[in-house]
Structure formats: structure tokens, C-alpha cells
């Protein structure tokens, strides 16, 4: 049960106990946090874009080419941007902090 902290767009910190095996996208959706995730993790959009806390970015598996291609279409991209559907929560990620991005209307 890794703990994960989501920082919302208006800078609120929400810490949740997520079930191992879920992706960060699924953990956010389960918590009812604002995130579109239109394609539900099928690597066909960039609406689950998150910004990973810099201290955690290098601990993740690097993004695949397909993920990079989709990140090209995300707004407000940063050097630690990822698609949250591509990050499975494992015990190694206990305590990770990620920032949600604005929902595009």
C-alpha cells in the first residue's frame, strides 16, 4: 500500500494510501481527483499528464517512445512530465509526490 501525495493545481496536498498494482492515474481517479484520463490508460491521449516531483523523477522507469510521442501533445510540459497511466505504483515508490496539471476545457 504505497502512500502517494498529489499536489493539486491550487497547491493543496492530498496524501492517499493507494493499492499496489494500480497506476498513478488509477489511484488519482479512485480518489476522485480532477484528471481527465480520456483514453483510460490505453496510450492514446495525454490527458493524465502529471509533473513528477524532481527528486522522484529518476527513480521511475523512463518513458517509452510511445509515451514521449503523446507527451509532445501535452500542455505546460516540464522536464519531469509523465503520463500517470504509465507509472504502476510499487513499494519502491512509497512516499512519491506528483503534481496534477490543469484540466483543459
Amino acid at each position: 500500500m504505497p502512500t502517494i501525495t498529489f499536489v493539486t493545481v491550487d497547491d493543496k496536498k492530498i496524501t492517499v494510501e493507494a493499492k499496489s498494482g494500480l497506476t498513478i492515474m488509477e489511484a488519482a481517479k479512485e480518489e476522485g481527483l480532477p484528471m481527465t484520463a480520456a483514453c483510460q490508460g490505453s496510450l492514446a491521449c495525454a490527458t493524465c499528464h502529471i509533473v513528477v516531483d524532481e527528486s522522484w523523477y529518476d527513480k521511475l522507469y523512463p518513458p517509452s517512445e510511445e509515451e514521449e510521442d503523446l507527451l509532445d501533445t501535452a500542455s505546460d510540459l516540464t522536464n519531469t512530465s509523465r503520463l500517470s497511466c504509465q507509472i504502476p505504483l510499487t513499494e519502491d515508490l512509497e512516499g512519491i509526490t506528483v503534481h496534477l496539471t490543469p484540466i483543459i476545457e
Partner: protein
Amino acid sequence: MEENTQNTTDVVIIGAGPVGLFTVFQLGMLKLTSHVFDTLHDIGGQCTALYPEKPIYDIPALPEVNAIDLIAQLQKQIAPFKPIFHLGQQVTEITKNEKDWLITSSTGIQVRAKAIIIAAGAGAFGPNKPALKNIGDYEGKGVYYSVSKRESFKDKRLVIAGGGDSAVDWAISLADLAEKIYVVHRREKFRAIPENVAQMKSLSEAGKIELLIPYQLESLEGDASGLKAVNIISFDQEKQVKRIESDALLSFFGLSARLGPIAQWGLSIENAQINVEPTTCATNIEGIFAVGDIAHYPHKLKLILTGFAEAAQAAHAAYTVVHPDKALHFQHSTSLGLPPTEA
């Protein structure tokens, strides 16, 4: 060509994705006619627009099928029912009359129908717009998401943003026409046909195109008359800002889905999904049904498979709306067969 004429049908389907298409079939088996609207110019919804070449493995009796082929098969399956398609237009308005609904599209097409089935998935696809302040102020006055008239960029200074086929193809196509083209992309790799990327790079060596890599859009400058400059910021630790004087920004960041006018019709909507009664797919408005990814009820599974079943549920429920006084004599497709196809 479609004229601004009024048509009449039993059911209007909003959305030509896999579930909208199969709804035509289910209605057809009950001898109900249908018209289908979609904002995209092709049928197939996300299957065609987002992942045509991806294999799908969870369609019953099809161990593996590419999304584009699934759509082709559905098209064949529904052909006997002669659906009328209104593509490249959005349903903007629905009004209830005494006997039926009047459905109006963005291009002025009007259809009268007894029932409406919404199969709009994640919403209507439109350009994925970069999150830049005031971008709306310059749309059509310097900011464009597609090229409708190539000639309008003659002798102009253009910023083309994005790293896909559209960005690369238009950079090449406009290189001879425009005064100067800047291509802004956040990394070296372009997700485009390699031959075209190579051609763009050779045009940049010849000075026709300037590649600004790794940069992304930062802000726009202009006045009431339109866009004057695009500021870009380097996509690295330096965060270097560059100002590019330009007459136009062509923004190519793919498609994104928005619910659009559907949200204004008084339907019960939560998180961009329409609440329905799962056994009939009826919404809170009599005569309007929702199926597929846009339809929500407890424990809903967003699968094409589920959407197909919902299409059948909704078609049966819509029958009683179209024919309130007529008993539905149900026959399986094995007994009923298909309408004869004309030679």
C-alpha cells in the same frame, strides 16, 4: 452534397464511433431508421482518429482486430440498413416539439426524429489547444489549428508548433510560399514519416525553415488586429525565452475531446458522462438515450463490448418511444435475416 434540407427519421444517433455504428444495426433489426452525426469527417470515432493501427483483442469472436478494420466491418454490417451520415458537423441544438425532436447541426442540417441516442464517447473531437493565455483572442486572427487556404500564408512569417505529421507536412508544404517558417518542437525526434522529417531538415539546412528545438510555446503577443509575436521558452534547465515576430501560429498538437453542446441540454451529467438507467440506457430526458463510453451507471465498464450491448438495450427502449402503441414482436437475427440488398 448535402443541402440545408429537413429530413425525417426514427432515431438520430450522435457519434459515429463503434458503438454509434452498431446502434444503427440494432435499430435496423427493429425496422427503425436512423441518421448519424459526427464532428469528424470520417466514421469510427477514436478507433479511426486516435488508434487506427492498434490491435484490439477483446471483441467477441475476433481474436485480434485493428481498430480501423473493426470500423470497416461494422460499416459492412450496418450497410443493409442504409443509415444516413452527416459527418464533419456537430449537433448544436435539439428542440422538443409536440411529436418529435428537431436536431440541428453546425452546418445547418436539420433532422426530425422521435428519439435521440447519444453515443458520443469522450465528447466531440476538436483541436487540442495549447494552454496559452489569451489564445482565444487570436483564433482566426493569427492562430490556426488547420490550414484551409494555403495561399493566405504567402509571404508571411509563420511559427509552426508541434512534432507530428501535421507540423512536418505543413512546414514542407509552406516553405516556398511563406517568407519564413519557424518550427517549434520540444525535442529532436519528430513523430512523423521519416522521409518527410528528412526533407524538412534539408529545407532547414537550405535556410527555408528554422528549427527551434528544444523549445515550447510560452506566450502570445498582439493587439486587436491580430497576432504580432510568439514567445517560446527552451525545454531544458536554461529556460531561455526567445521572441519571434510572426504573422501566424499554426498549432498542431493533435485532437482532444470536449463534451460541447451536449452539456447544455439539461441532461444529468457528472464528470463528462451522462447518467442512464442501465437496463434501457434512458437518460433523465424522455426520448433521449445514451450508450457507450459517455453513458454512466454504477460499475460501468468502458469497453466497446459493453457499448455494443447498451446499443441493443437502447434500441429496444427507443422502439417504444417511436411506436408507443405498437407491440414489439421480437425475432432473433437468425429468424429475421437481413433486409435484401439491392443488386
